[in-house]
């Protein structure tokens, strides 16, 4: 295994593959002290900010547009274009950094925050300069204590060194970056819910229109919400030029991207690869990446872009990691989360687990999502418990259709945000492709999947008493 285990500070290190692929955002992770200001300055740190300050703000926006940097949070919208949606002449503008990484399967922003916080801070500064933001809020997921500590320490050092605050590097550019913590809610990763949360409220999404953040965001002022990985690319783009960034990748997908490959592969890990040209097969099977399915097993399905994405199969392996191609094939690259399932995986159980996630995390604002996801969970539970009815598969699809009419891709919404419709895709994928597994559960016939999801004998969790099945 050609892997470098770099200490993550807690528990095991994160595997960073040593390959010839260009490294834009993970280049420092080979160093144990990658989170310190000293290491950052010794490895080109804050040179992108200096390059930005030597340009006019509109030129910096132009550089990012030239780079064709797509947002790395999930929706994949061009960052430079998003910045341009702020209405002219309305001040103040805010930048809100979305560090609330919680899409199941996704593991990249936490690494960037824990291991290279200055890169993120520099990206925030470049964005604030380009957009004209008077204040930035760095919203870090509540559960990520180490990321909060590392960013707090990095910000304190950056203020002391004159990179943040009044008159940055002796210029007339001044901005505060405020570190903010969440407190445990997946929905807050949705940008309008993030803004609600940052206003001190329950994290429930706002209706778009009129509440597009660029027009009416934080305190109803123009607000740009960008993902951590998106901003982490900016220092390189400003240092090396947008054109160099755009030379990497293909079609609409330029630069590099971080992908977390998890599940039943030999080398689970987080890999930065060239965007648009690497294929799913490369990432799952190449020895420097996933290394193939674990010994003696075969691929059954994989999730290409987080729990919200429809599942992919063998026939999709040769698709490039390119937004357009994956969209056309009926799923999405989402947040760079590839979860691999081998043939021992019980698809009913996997579908239930994904649906239970959405049921638990539904904020409750819209009826189709609040009711629909919890009914999907209940029906799947009774199928798994052996009490399924012959009509249950159609009932599942009917509930899906009520949450997202037509069960199409991209999903139609009956709700304010995409959370509810996201729950539909794994169910629809599983029931369509593995109907026999569901039907076997219904009829009391032997279940085709007999092996544990963990590869050993499955130890059933004790069935909780009804009053304890909260959450």
């Amino acid at each position, binding site marked *: 295994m050609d892997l470098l285990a770099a200490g993550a500070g807690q*528990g*095991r290190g*994160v595997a960073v593959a040593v390959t010839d692929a260009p490294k834009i955002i993970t280049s420092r992770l080979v160093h144990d002290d990658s989170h310190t200001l000293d290491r950052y300055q010794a490895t080109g740190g804050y040179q992108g900010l200096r390059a930005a300050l030597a340009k*006019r*703000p*509109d030129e910096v*926006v132009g550089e990012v547009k030239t780079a064709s940097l797509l947002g790395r949070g999930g929706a994949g919208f061009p960052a430079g274009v998003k910045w*341009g949606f702020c209405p002219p*002449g309305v*001040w103040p503008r805010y930048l809100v950094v979305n560090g609330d990484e*919680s899409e*199941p399967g996704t*593991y990249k*922003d*936490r690494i960037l925050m824990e291991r290279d916080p200055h890169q993120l801070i520099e990206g925030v500064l470049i964005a604030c300069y380009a957009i*004209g933001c*008077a*204040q930035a809020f760095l919203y870090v997921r*509540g*559960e990520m*204590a180490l990321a909060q*500590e590392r960013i*707090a320490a990095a910000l*304190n050092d950056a*203020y*002391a060194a004159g990179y943040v*605050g009044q008159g940055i590097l002796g210029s*007339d*550019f001044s901005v*505060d970056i*405020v570190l*903010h*913590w969440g*407190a*445990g*809610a997946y929905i807050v990763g949705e940008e309008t819910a993030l803004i609600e949360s940052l*206003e*001190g*409220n*329950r994290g429930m999404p706002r209706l778009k229109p009129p509440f597009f953040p660029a027009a009416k965001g934080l*305190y*109803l002022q123009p607000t740009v919400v960008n993902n951590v990985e998106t901003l982490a690319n900016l220092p390189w783009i400003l240092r090396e030029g947008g054109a160099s960034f755009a030379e990497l990748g293909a079609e609409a997908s330029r630069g590099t991207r971080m992908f977390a*490959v*998890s*599940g039943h592969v030999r080398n*689970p*890990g*987080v890999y930065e690869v060239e965007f648009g040209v690497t294929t799913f097969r490369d990432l799952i099977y190449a020895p420097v990446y996933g290394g193939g399915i674990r010994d003696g097993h075969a691929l059954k399905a994989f999730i290409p872009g987080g*729990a919200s994405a429809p599942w992919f199969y063998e026939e999709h392996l040769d698709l490039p990691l390119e937004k357009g191609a994956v969209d056309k094939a009926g799923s999405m690259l989402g947040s760079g989360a590839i*979860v691999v399932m081998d043939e021992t995986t019980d698809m009913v*159980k996997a579908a239930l*687990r994904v649906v239970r*996630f959405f049921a*638990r995390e539904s*904020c409750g604002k819209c009826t189709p999502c609040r009711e629909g996801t919890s009914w999907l969970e209940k029906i799947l539970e009774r199928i798994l418990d052996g009490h399924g009815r012959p009509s249950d598969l159609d009932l599942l699809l009917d509930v899906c259709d009520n949450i997202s009419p037509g069960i199409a891709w991209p999903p139609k919404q009956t709700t304010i945000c995409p959370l509810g419709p996201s729950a539909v895709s794994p169910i629809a994928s599983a029931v369509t492709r593995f109907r026999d597994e569901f039907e076997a559960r219904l009829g009391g016939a032997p279940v085709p999947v007999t092996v544990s999801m*963990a590869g*050993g004998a499955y130890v059933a*969790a*004790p069935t909780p008493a009804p009053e304890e099945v909260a*959450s």
Partner: protein
Amino acid sequence: MARLTLDNELLAREIIARYPRPKSALIPLLHLAQEQDGWVTDEAMEHLAELVGVTPAEVLGTCSFYEMFKRQPVGRYVINVCTNIACQLMGGEELLAHAEESLGVRSGSTTADGMFTVEDVECIAACTEAPCLQVNYRYRHRITPEQFDTMVEDLRAGRLDDEVPPHGTLARVRQRIPAGAAVGPARPGECEEPVWISSRPAPAKGEG
């Protein structure tokens, strides 16, 4: 119990002063209250309401939305076992079952000695390191049942005190904005076009 202590009230005021509107500080302040007492008491919520200028009911409204805020006492150590899809595939449910069995509590409850609360949680962003858990939000990656038992013993014996603070304490490093360097909150209605934009206008036909 437990309004904020004087020191914590001063810290709370420092945090509030960073935001354009005081209520924005509510989640960080609820964390502060939880750090002080190990959970969020009614009295603390009333105090926070006074500090940010909203009703106690509004503070409760925010507090009750977020899973990390505990409105009743929990164990000194809250162990969150991930059972979401990537961990499920690698034995997360078995790990949770082991945690429940070895500690003698169901998910969501606390051991009689007040040491451990077990919870099953949603994805905590360590999917390539499955199965994983957090104890007071400190990660344990690729953990086996044996390692789990060792961790519990070490926690009981206080051998992990340096790494794992009691429940409620999240980051042990706080942001401090030096008064001389602070720009201050950008309040709506009080801001004009930033000088670095107005002093470097885009050429006439550029759109920016």
